[in-house]
């Protein structure tokens, strides 16, 4: 595309812009680097020289060992993996089915149903948490993974349906119709024809559901706080316990090692799937 930039002035502008972008990229990457460095320092070093590099001869790998065993992050990690993966699975599936229904078919109340789901985007979570707590208790779902899972799935649905309905709308009608003409049942047509087509949208939903669930604190805090729930707790609860405690007593080295443990899987997931992310989110958001 260089032909669009004739002349030296434009080359200089381009250099300046490039340097600007590099600066911005450093601002964005530096924090992750800083978190990583800090997690390898001793408490006293963090406190007295927060931005210094860790001394290479004295890297505190023991912070990780400590947070993994004494901080029970091994246990938290396992719980988070289970609950997040099951949530992502259920959300992608249920929202794809609902989005297929809402985008492809016309029936009495179809618009109302769509708006009913979208209204969920506007419900502040802190509003419904207290009645939900009682409901969970009445259903015997408190202090259980099952209850937390159901709540996570339900609260992730509105955004997922929002994105996927738009995405399904952008898919060609003809393929679906020809599958039906060939005698495939409604469900088979969805499963074998529409779902594969909707993959970028579903990956987008998976990423956002993953980010939301993996970092979710408030519901986990509420629903996994009573008796017998210690073994079920997720990473954000563990992390909050060390970082909130840090307000008072500041065991920073553990907190930062914990942060790295929480961030790494998210980073991996994002780098793995990022190619499909932008496509899905844009199509989904615009075609609603």
């Amino acid at each position, binding site marked *: *595309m260089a032909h*669009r930039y004739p002349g030296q002035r434009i080359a200089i502008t381009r250099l300046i812009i*490039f340097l600007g*972008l590099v600066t911005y*990229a450093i*601002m*964005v*990457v530096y*924090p992750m680097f800083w*978190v990583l460095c800090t997690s390898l320092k001793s*408490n006293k070093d963090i406190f007295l020289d927060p931005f210094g590099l860790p001394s290479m001869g004295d890297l505190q790998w023991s912070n990780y060992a400590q947070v993994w065993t004494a901080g029970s992050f091994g246990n938290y990690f396992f719980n988070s993996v*289970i609950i997040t993966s*099951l949530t992502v*699975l*259920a959300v992608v*599936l*249920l*929202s794809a*089915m*609902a989005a297929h*229904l809402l985008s*492809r078919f*016309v029936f009495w109340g179809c618009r109302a149903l769509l708006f009913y789901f979208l209204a*969920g985007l*506007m*419900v*502040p979570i*802190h509003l*419904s948490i*207290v*009645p939900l707590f009682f*409901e969970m208790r009445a259903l015997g779902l408190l202090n259980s993974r*099952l209850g937390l899972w*159901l709540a996570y*799935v*339900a609260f992730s649905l509105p955004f997922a349906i929002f994105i996927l309905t738009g995405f399904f709308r952008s898919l060609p009608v003809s393929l679906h119709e020809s599958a*039906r003409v060939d005698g495939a*049942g*409604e*469900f*088979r047509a969805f499963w074998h024809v529409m779902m594969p087509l909707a993959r970028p949208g579903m990956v987008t939903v998976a990423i956002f559901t993953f*980010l939301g669930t993996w*970092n979710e604190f408030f519901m986990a805090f509420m629903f996994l*706080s009573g008796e017998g729930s210690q073994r079920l707790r997720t990473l*954000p609860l563990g992390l909050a316990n060390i*970082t909130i*405690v840090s*307000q*008072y*007593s500041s065991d920073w080295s553990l907190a930062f090692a914990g942060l790295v443990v929480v*961030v790494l899987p998210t*980073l991996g997931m*994002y780098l793995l799937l990022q190619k499909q992310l*932008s*496509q899905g*989110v*844009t*199509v989904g*958001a*615009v075609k609603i």
Partner: protein
Amino acid sequence: MVVCPLLPPVQILCLGFVVLAVMESLACAEEPNIEVEAALFDSGAGQLPFYLETAREYEKLRPGIKINLYGDPRIATKNRIRALESTFPAITDLGPDYWTLIRNGDILPLDEFLDGPSWEGDSTWRESFLPGALDLYRYQGKTYGLPLPYYANTCWYNKKLFREHGWSKPTTWDQFFNLCAQIRGAGIAPLAFPGRYPASSKIIAYAAYYHLAGPEAFVAQQLIEPGSFDNTQMRQAFEILLEARDNFQPGALGMSFNEVHEQLLRGHAAMMFGGSGFRAQIGDKLPEHFELGTFNIPSFAHSAADPTAVAGGQWYYFVHRHAPHAREAVDFLRYLTSRQMAGRFARATNIPVAVRGAMEGNLSRDLDELVHILSSARTTYWNGPQGGVQPPEMNQYIVDALDKLLTHRATADEMCRQLEADAAVVRQRIASPDLVNYRHVWKPLALGALVVAVVLYATIAGAWRRRHARAVTAGRLRISPMGIVVFGGPALVLYTVFVVWPALQAFAWSTQRWDGLTPMRYVGLLHFKRLLFESDGFWIALGNNLFIMFVIPAFVLPLSLFLAACINRGIWGSALFRVVFFFPNILGGVTVTLLWLRLYSAQGGLINAALVKMGKAAMAMGLEGPGHWLTGFAGFAWLSAEHLYWSLVPIAIWGAAGFNMLLLLAAMQTIPQSLYEAADMDGASIWRQFWTITMPLIWPVISIVLVFMIIAGMKTFELIWLLTEQMPNTSNHVIATRMVQTMFVEFRVGEATAIAVLLFILVFFGSATTLRFMRREAVEF
């Protein structure tokens, strides 16, 4: 229609269900005979390991009893939720308003046990505590609270620094301020102060008032009796605070507790006021050669109160009468407060305790001065009056007043008169809870008119569109009712049961008055009237939301557009930039807050350091003006209440630009290259191409981006809540933080849900309006 007999999704859901259910059943343990539940506060200073160890040892001594003990820094919230369903753990120490519970008869009186033997059996249990330690929670002749940790506010100082300069510990405020002048003269900041919590300046103002006006007047002020704020002594007390403020370290108003500790330990400041938990908080981070000392808060040469008085009190445990096995719970507390266990507590946490003979030899040597202050004190004040408690609403007014004083926005005299007026409002609220003072008229009217206008417009436009655009559903198919149930059913059921139904229930609470402890009472629209017509706080919070909704997108959107355009034009490394710019979105809220707290740190933060460096470089190049301006940022308090909202702008840009760039970039990439090539041929500049080709074609995405930002701006919670350390004052609340504070801190459930209803309405109409006004004819190509 043929539906497969075994649907894969149903299989997957069942699988999830079965996996989780099996794990649950494996997790179940056998029930012991007697189980005592204890939910205790843990600040991380070593309380929880101590509690757990004590519980296990107690179980060995009393077979058949199991102590189900857990602790958490946020235990208050959990215990308040338990209060809502009136199933308390047997033992708690933080959360509900204990005075309400005591008056309702929900707390077990302890006198019967206190008059019995202590655990060691060498005295009565009552006599095993320090004098006066049991006094606070006494009501109608009965004792309800059991103390263990002893918290006192004193002044901590750098002993070595004092010795080297020959400074001596002051006992009066005059001596204190003379000392401050000497310290300043030596080039050191006299006082470190955590200005992000204006409430912590209460230590100074309250202590001065106690000694000026005497114990009776102090209690009268706690009970907000008429005349207890607008008086000479209070004015003098505020003057003391203002003089202390003038000795704060530069940037103190933007500092947190951690930073203040750091400043003291690094020798940048000579003194700080703080509680006796300080030594426990710094733990092993005390630098070598640092000597810690402490002296009591200064008083006056002619004090109206006992000069040995300690500004502090004990931390209390309560036993809930209706909890199962309340008497066994008391027996466990007897063990917990035995001399041996209290001594172990002191040793484990380095926090003083209220049990006789338990501190000696168990605290670190640098607390000797503190132990001396505590053991020679004849009385304590601080924790509030006996038999009652200050109304929680008053606290917010006091904190606001302190904030205004500290930031030079009011004089002592103004604040005395203001607080007197506030106290009158609070008294009136207590006397006639259903009265509404109509103070705001135009703002609620404007808001109502906006809502009505949007509804009318949407209805009319909707009807018009229905008549003219039937084609929308033309290409769509019909489906059997069974199909609707199969595809939409599971999502609909889950969403209705776990999202909609609880939200509707919460809405129903908005017409009730309920503190979770006493029965609900129907009050109609009272909460809404009060929020819209009387409360200043609600409108201030809404204003802050509007700032976030409109000022922040004004920065974020152009930058995102710029980044997207650069990458779209294929600048070097654009593939890498695209991936990297999204990074802030994968960090959770806690990480982001921790990071920016450090960056914005007034002393030693990267941002101030960088600005000062740039300023010095500018001065070296002969640019005096900008150089001075930049070096002026040394010690600038970014996170003080005054500057907080503008400080949010960089955080928001950093956090949101990458995500929005991704959306805009994807939209730009759908634009056919041929359009640009044609424009090139016509000689249109890049700038012109951007405005006439790119912008119109990505307009729908821009409007979606804006709606996302407006919804997010309206619902902003975490950032403000964490940056204000969960204690925003009236001027920096947003609506969501106000709701959470009303719900979980002040515990007015009805009013909190009323705020939530208003928030929902605002989000709904805010996003609907934006979408309507942004809608243009879609451009097809």
